[in-house]
C-alpha cells in the first residue's frame, strides 16, 4: 500500500519519475523547477534510479537530448520553467510532430521582464499550440499521480506524443503537504516497463525529422492532431484503470458546487483550491457560486466544459497571463470559443490576476464573482486586470 507522507511536491513528482523507472533524464535547473531535477540527480547518483542523467548546458539542449532519447526508445523525462520553457520553444513543436513520447514537468513561473521568479501561467500559455498533451496539477497528490499516468499515456501506441504536467511554481512546487506515495510494486503493476520500439535503430535505419514540403506538411500536421485528439479516450481508460487500482479518480475537469449555481468560476492549477474555499464562503453568504477546474488543457475538453456549465448564466474565468492586445486571456478565449455555436450564451468575464506572483487569495475570487454578478456596462473592459490604477 502507498505511504501517506509529508513531502515537498517537487520531490513527490520526482519520486513518481523514479517509480516510472525512467531511463533518461536530461534537464537544466531553473527556479522553481530546481528541486525536481536535483532530487532526480540524487536518486540517480545514489543508485536508487537506474537512469542516465544528462547534465546538459541549456534547456534547448535538454529537450533536444530528450528527443534523441525518446527516438531511441528510452523512457524520457525532463522538467523546466519560465525562461527555460521559452528557450525550449522551437523544439517542443518538433517533439510532438515527430511523435516522440516523453514527459515534462513545468513548474509554472512568469516570464521576464521585469525579472521575476514567481508563479503565473505566462510561461505555459504561449506554448498551448505545441501539440503536447497538457495537464495541470492542483495538488501534490495529482503531481505525483499524473506523472505515472503521463508516461503510460505518452507511450501508448495509439498516442505516441509528449505529455507535460504543469504545476504552479512555489505554491505547488515548493509546498510540503501530505501525499500518498505509490509503492514500487503498485507502480510496476500500473505502468509496465518501457516497451517503446526504438525509432532510431541501426538494424532498421530510417530518416526522422526529414524535409517535408507542401506535398506532405499538412498531412503530417493532420496525423499529429488526430493523435492528440485521439489521446482523450486513451487517457480516460488510463484514469479508469488508475482509479480501479488506487481509488483516486481523475477527469479532464473537476466541478465543485455547481448545483443550482448562478455563477461559475473557471480556474486552472493549484489556486483552484483557494477558489474552492471562496466558493464555500460565497455560498455561506447566499451567493450561489460554483467552480470548474480544468485539468486537461490540451486537448481542450469542450464537451465536458459545456455540459458542466449548463445552465449557469454567468461565468468568471481566471487567466494567469496577460495576452497583450488580445480580446481576452488564453483561457477565456478558449471558453468563449467553446460557447460560440452553443444555443445558450452565458455572460463570460475574463479576469487576469495573479501575475508575477501577485497574491491570488480568496479576496480575488470573491471580487471576480461580485464584479461578474454586478453585470457589465458600456464601459466594462473585456479584460478585468487586477491592477492598481491610482
Amino acid at each position, binding site marked *: 500500500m502507498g505511504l501517506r507522507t509529508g513531502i515537498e511536491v517537487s520531490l513527490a513528482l520526482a519520486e513518481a519519475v523514479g517509480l516510472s523507472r525512467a531511463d533518461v533524464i536530461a534537464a537544466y535547473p531553473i527556479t522553481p523547477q530546481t528541486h525536481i531535477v536535483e532530487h532526480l540527480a540524487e536518486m540517480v547518483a545514489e543508485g536508487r534510479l537506474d537512469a542516465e542523467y544528462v547534465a546538459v548546458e541549456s534547456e534547448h539542449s535538454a529537450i533536444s537530448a530528450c528527443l534523441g532519447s525518446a527516438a531511441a526508445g528510452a523512457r524520457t523525462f525532463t522538467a523546466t520553467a519560465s525562461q527555460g520553457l521559452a528557450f525550449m520553444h522551437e523544439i517542443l513543436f518538433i517533439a510532438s*510532430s*515527430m*511523435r*516522440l513520447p516523453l514527459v515534462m514537468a513545468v513548474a509554472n513561473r512568469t516570464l521576464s521582464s521585469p525579472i521575476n521568479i514567481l508563479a503565473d501561467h505566462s510561461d505555459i500559455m504561449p506554448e498551448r499550440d505545441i501539440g503536447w498533451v497538457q495537464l495541470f496539477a492542483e495538488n501534490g497528490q495529482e503531481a505525483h499521480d499524473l506523472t505515472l499516468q503521463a508516461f503510460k499515456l505518452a507511450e501508448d501506441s495509439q498516442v*505516441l506524443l509528449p505529455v507535460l504536467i504543469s504545476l504552479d511554481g512555489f505554491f505547488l512546487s515548493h509546498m510540503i503537504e501530505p501525499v500518498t506515495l505509490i509503492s514500487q510494486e503498485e507502480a510496476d503493476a500500473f505502468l509496465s516497463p518501457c516497451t517503446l520500439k526504438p*525509432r532510431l535503430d541501426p538494424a532498421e*535505419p*530510417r*530518416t*526522422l*525529422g*526529414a524535409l*517535408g*514540403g*507542401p*506535398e*506532405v506538411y*499538412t*498531412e*503530417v500536421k*493532420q*496525423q*499529429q492532431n*488526430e493523435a492528440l485528439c485521439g489521446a482523450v479516450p486513451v487517457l480516460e481508460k488510463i484514469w479508469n484503470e488508475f482509479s480501479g487500482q488506487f481509488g483516486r479518480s481523475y477527469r479532464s475537469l473537476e466541478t465543485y458546487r455547481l448545483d443550482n449555481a448562478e455563477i461559475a468560476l473557471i480556474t486552472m492549477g493549484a489556486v483552484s483550491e483557494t477558489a474552492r474555499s471562496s466558493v464555500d464562503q460565497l455560498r455561506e453568504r447566499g451567493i450561489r457560486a460554483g467552480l470548474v477546474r480544468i485539468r486537461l488543457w490540451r486537448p481542450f475538453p469542450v464537451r465536458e466544459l459545456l455540459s458542466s456549465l449548463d445552465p449557469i448564466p454567468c461565468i468568471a474565468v481566471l487567466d494567469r497571463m496577460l495576452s497583450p492586445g488580445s480580446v481576452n486571456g488564453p483561457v477565456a478565449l478558449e471558453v468563449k470559443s467553446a460557447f460560440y455555436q452553443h444555443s445558450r450564451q452565458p455572460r463570460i468575464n475574463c479576469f487576469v490576476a495573479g501575475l508575477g506572483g501577485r497574491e491570488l487569495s480568496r479576496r480575488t475570487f470573491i471580487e471576480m464573482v461580485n464584479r461578474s454578478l454586478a453585470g457589465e456596462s458600456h464601459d466594462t473592459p473585456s479584460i478585468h486586470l487586477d491592477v492598481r490604477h491610482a
Partner: protein
Amino acid sequence: MIEIRFHGRGGQGSVTAAELVAQAAINEGKYAQAFPSFGPERRGAPVSAFLRVSDSQIFLREKIEAPDVIVVLDASLIELVDVFSGLKAGGSAVMNCPPHKRKSLMPWNESYRLVTVDATQAAMNNIGLPIANTAMIGALLKGMGLIKLDSFQMPLQTRFGRLAEKNFQSMTQAFHDAQIAEPSGEAPLSSPAQELDFSGIIEKEALMAWKSLALGGDILEPGNSARFLTGTWRMTGKPVFHSDACTKCGLCRLFCPEDAIFRDADEQFIYNEDYCKGCGQCARECPKGAITMEEEAWV
C-alpha cells in the same frame, strides 16, 4: 492580363528574366508581377518563374498553372519537366533552340505557336557567356509584342551595370533572329468560361493521404536519395574521358564532389550519368588534359 511561365535551370537566370520584364512593364506604366517558384535553390536543377503583365491592377498571388506563354531557357528541360503543362491552346512557346534542332520541336507546333531563337548563341556573340536569359526576353518581345525593347534600358542598367549594354545587344539580336511559327493545326476555338472545379486538386498537391504517412513523417526506406538523379541538373556539358592521354592517376575521381567517377571493367575512368552534375571539376583537375567537357545531345 497575360500570364507567362519561365522554365530554366538554376543559375540560368530565369527568375532574373521574369523580373526584368516585370520592371520594364512597370516602367511603361503597366501592372506586373514576377516571382520564382519558392524552394531550395540548386544550380542546374529545373526551376520555374512566373510573370503577369496587365493594364489593370493584378489581384492574384498564385502560381501560373494555365499560362498564355511559356519561355523555355533550356530546351533539354523538355525531357525532364512538362514545360507545356497547362499552356492554353494556341498559346505561345518561346524556346531557346539552335537552328539544327528546331525540327525536333515541330510536334508541339500543331497546337502551339512556336517562337524559336538560338539565344545561347546570341548571348555568346554579345556577352561572351552562354547566359541566355536576356536574349530570351528579346524572343519573347518578338513573339508577343508585350513591351518595347527600349523600356529594358533602365532595368538592365540597374541590374547589370557595365554589362547592361552587352545584354541589351544580346536581347536585340535575339529579337531580330527569333522565328515565329503559327500553329499548324486547326485554330483552337476560344474555350467557353469553365465552371470552377477543384476536384482532384488535393490529390495532386498532396503526396499521400495522412493515414498512409509513416509515424511523424519518418522516411522508412534507407538510402532512397539514390533515386534522386542529380545528373539531370547537368547543364554545361558532360565529361568525356580520353583514354589515350589518361595516366590513371585518379585525381578526377578524388576531386569529383559527387563521387560520380569510377573505373569500368577495363580499368578506364568513366562517369556516372545519373549523378554527375557536370561541374567540370574533373576536367579542371586532370593534369594531362584527358578530360574535356562536351555538349550533350537533347530531345
